[in-house]
């Protein structure tokens, strides 16, 4: 709860700084503030508590994920400095929106009441709509914003309808009450329907097939930093929330009571396979790096959906997977931001010869791509390993084999980029070594590798 308040306060401070003409101090201050919030959040770790009539429930799950969100936001704010270099008047708005978005995100993983959940997801979505469309003179950005907005509101409507049905079944929005009464025998069918509708809405947010179509278009059209945010923070938030919904509302046992669990699991398996396959296969032919990473994100969503099959045990695995994925994503996007800052597109050709002109950045991008592909020592590998381990334990060996095949396909497009960096001649001068971008890239990949070397640090947090 304190985290949420602190984050909100920080956002308002950002706005105040603009009024007080302290524009230059905004980013350093925000980063420091976020670090403080992170510390605060750490202090809350392990204290199971609920606040304000159970509106906010602080648990290990919520604090762990909140910390991850805060870390990601720190990186994203740090990257803002160079990205919004040409928009000095708007920088406070951008930063403040990101901070509020973080507040929404934290609310989404620590909600104790569906109202908080709904408001959290709306804050997140609206902030994202704005950020997607924020390059207002760019027609692509407009289009991305519009697409995201239309489809996102549509999904919000469905989530709202789902919440309504849950309320109809339970007579309450309180998570605890709902999870208690979800086991009762005379449950109206409204509850599972409502849950499914909410899940469908969340699947849209995590961009799982067949609700994924927005992702590539929006990722491509949005300003690169927004894409970074969507593909890391937003995706992680969405999957974590989805996980929390399924586990917190006791959906699995409820479905079991009604003999619906089996079909539900089949649905999860099918969606997971579809997401992985579609994401990976479609990414093969992409030339725009952001678009490629969008499809990669879709496939990773498929992987992460596998955790829904083993809800009771896989919170730690999900945290690990999301952390690994998001940190790799941040590192990758830092490099993309650097490489494409003077270009109006993010085609692979921009990356030609990066290995010669900027070996460090090329190495970082390579490392992050290897992590996403699941090559050992990078945490992406361990993420997949733990996930597969968990899934095989639950008996879904076929699913794991499909996932393995998909991992193989994914190497194809990740390596396309690596090939471009190392085996093509540089086609342009790349000058300047913006400190913040380098720092963000180095730190995020270092964290990624550290996670790979000491997986237990994160994995055992939620035990």
């Amino acid at each position, binding site marked *: 709860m304190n985290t949420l308040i602190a984050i909100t306060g920080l956002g308002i401070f950002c706005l105040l700084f603009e009024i007080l003409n302290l524009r230059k101090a905004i980013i350093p201050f925000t980063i420091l503030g976020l670090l403080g919030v992170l510390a605060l959040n750490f202090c809350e770790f392990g204290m199971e508590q609920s606040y304000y009539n159970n509106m906010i429930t602080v648990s290990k799950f919520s604090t762990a994920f909140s910390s991850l969100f805060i870390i990601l936001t720190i990186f994203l704010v740090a990257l803002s400095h160079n990205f919004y270099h040409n928009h000095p008047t708007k920088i406070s708005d951008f930063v403040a929106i990101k901070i509020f978005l973080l507040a929404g995100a934290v609310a989404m993983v620590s909600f104790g009441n569906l109202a908080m959940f709904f408001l959290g997801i709306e804050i997140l979505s609206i902030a994202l709509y704005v950020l997607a469309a924020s390059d207002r003179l760019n027609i692509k950005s407009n289009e991305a914003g519009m697409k995201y907005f239309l489809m996102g509101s549509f999904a919000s409507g469905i989530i709202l309808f789902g919440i309504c049905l849950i309320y109809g079944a339970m007579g309450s929005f309180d998570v605890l009450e709902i999870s208690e009464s979800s086991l009762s025998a005379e449950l109206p069918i409204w509850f599972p329907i409502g849950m499914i509708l909410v899940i469908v809405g969340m699947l849209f947010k995590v961009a799982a097939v067949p609700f994924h179509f927005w992702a590539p278009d929006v990722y491509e059209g949005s300003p690169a930093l927004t894409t970074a945010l969507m593909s890391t923070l937003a995706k992680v938030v969405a999957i974590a929330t989805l996980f929390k919904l399924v586990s917190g509302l006791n959906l699995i046992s409820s479905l079991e009571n009604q003999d619906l669990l089996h079909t539900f699991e089949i649905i999860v398996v099918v969606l997971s396979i579809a997401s992985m396959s579609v994401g990976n296969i479609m990414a093969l032919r992409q030339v725009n790096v952001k678009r490629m990473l969008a499809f990669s994100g879709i496939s990773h969503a498929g992987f992460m959906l596998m955790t829904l099959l083993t809800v009771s045990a896989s919170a730690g695995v999900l945290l690990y997977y999301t952390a690994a994925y998001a940190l790799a994503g941040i590192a990758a996007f830092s490099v993309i931001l650097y490489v494409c800052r003077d270009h109006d597109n993010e085609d692979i050709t921009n990356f030609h010869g990066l*290995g010669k002109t900027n*070996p460090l950045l090329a190495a970082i991008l390579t490392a992050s791509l*290897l992590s996403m592909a699941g*090559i*050992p*020592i990078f945490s992406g*590998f*361990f993420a997949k*390993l*733990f996930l*597969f*381990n968990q899934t*095989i*334990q639950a008996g879904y*060996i076929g699913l*794991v*084999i499909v996932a*393995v*095949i998909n*991992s*193989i396909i994914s*190497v*194809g497009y990740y*390596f396309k980029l690596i*090939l471009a960096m*190392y*085996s*093509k001649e540089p086609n342009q001068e790349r000058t300047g070594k913006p400190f913040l971008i380098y720092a963000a890239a180095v730190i995020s990949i270092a964290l990624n590798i550290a996670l790979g070397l000491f*997986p*237990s640090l994160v*994995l*055992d947090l939620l*035990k």
Partner: protein
Amino acid sequence: MNVSTILIILLIGAFATYFSGDKLSSKVALLFSLAALGCSILLLNNYNAGENISLITSWINQPKISFALNADGLAMAMVLLTAALTPIIIFSSFGNEYKNAKAFYGLILFMAFAMTGTFLASDGLLYYIFWELALVPIYFIALIWGNGDAEERRKAVVKFFIYTLAGSLFMLTAFIYLSQKANGSFLIEDLYKLNLSACEQFWIFLAFFLAYAIKIPLIPFHTWQANVYQKAPTVGTMLLSGIMLKMGLYSVIRWQLPLAPIAAKEYMYVFIALGIAGVIYGSIVALRQNDLKKLLAYSSLAHVGLIAAGSYTLTLDGLRGAVLQMIAHGFVVVGLFFAAEVIFRRFETREIAEMGGIRTQSPKFTSMFLILVLASVALPSTFNFVGEFTVLYSLSQINIWFAVLGGTTIILGAYYMLRMFQHVMLGETNSKTFADVSLNEGISFAVIIAVLLFFGFYPKPITDLITPSLETILQVINKN
């Protein structure tokens, strides 16, 4: 002192090389590889003295993954192979100028690190991690410093990477499955204790087989090999053929057979036949190759086919012969590829048709090349003969026809190798000048040849080293 020292030396060496700058890097790399060699010899000494040089530290709790390195005789032999070949390979590259040499040599040491780790790891997952790690440096070595048309090279290298990764991911799945059965432990001892049903074993065997058949490679999974060998820089080719292939073969013995013994016994004939088919196929394809490195690649295919067949016999002879042959082949193939490189340095071609007549210009080189050729065709008194004889003998114990068919390697091998030798070295004096071998080159050759001849007459040290551990593995295989 335990086996992790050698890993640490190599890893530190990799970074030290990278940070020592382009000029010094090759020397630094050589220094560290020699240090690793020294360390491994010390360790061998300790091992022979009966000291415990293994290491087990817990790493990840759930699933239980340990940082477990175990050096038994077999692993020790392979580590020695790696440690001995790495300095030779590095030293052999001294005649070449590489752009960005620090990264190049750093990657070589890193690869040596990963390969050594693969041989030492006694935890399934740790082993897998090293296994995959070894793949990354060679990918970059082949991609960046390779030769030939860039587009072709990219294709070949990416195919190689994806292909081998594909195989090993199935192995990973098998490992995870096994660890489930072993209550979440990946430790090799725990996995050895499992009693799996025949059906489970079949699938696990198959998953492992996919990984190893691609890595080794066995036909028909070999299509990456010739192209990558051809396109990679010779140093990369040496690493690939000299050591990395052996990773696959070693893994067959260490992991595949003991973990799925029933399946191994059940389908023994199939896999032996596959190995022998590789012998014949590789030899025949090698006959009509125009590119020297490709020819050597196919010869390698033939040789490893025989080694694999030996391993799948599940007899002590087969395994022992396979290991001996692995070591012998490691040295020979490095020597042969180095010879190809020596020619390339002077003629700037790998086309056999453009060579010839070198013998009149450089008799020294010719002699050394000939000895390598002869070792490759397993002339008695070379190390390769010891291995090949043992393997063929073990095959004959299974079925005499296996030995006959596998034995065609000595005919076909002689045919393509001598044909190659004739066209490369003999004939009218070449119009291009062929400078005599330099001292550096000569030293590399001499070391390799000395090893081959010494162990050709006196393989006992190696046999004694590996036999106890092979017997242990056989006990696991035959536990039911």
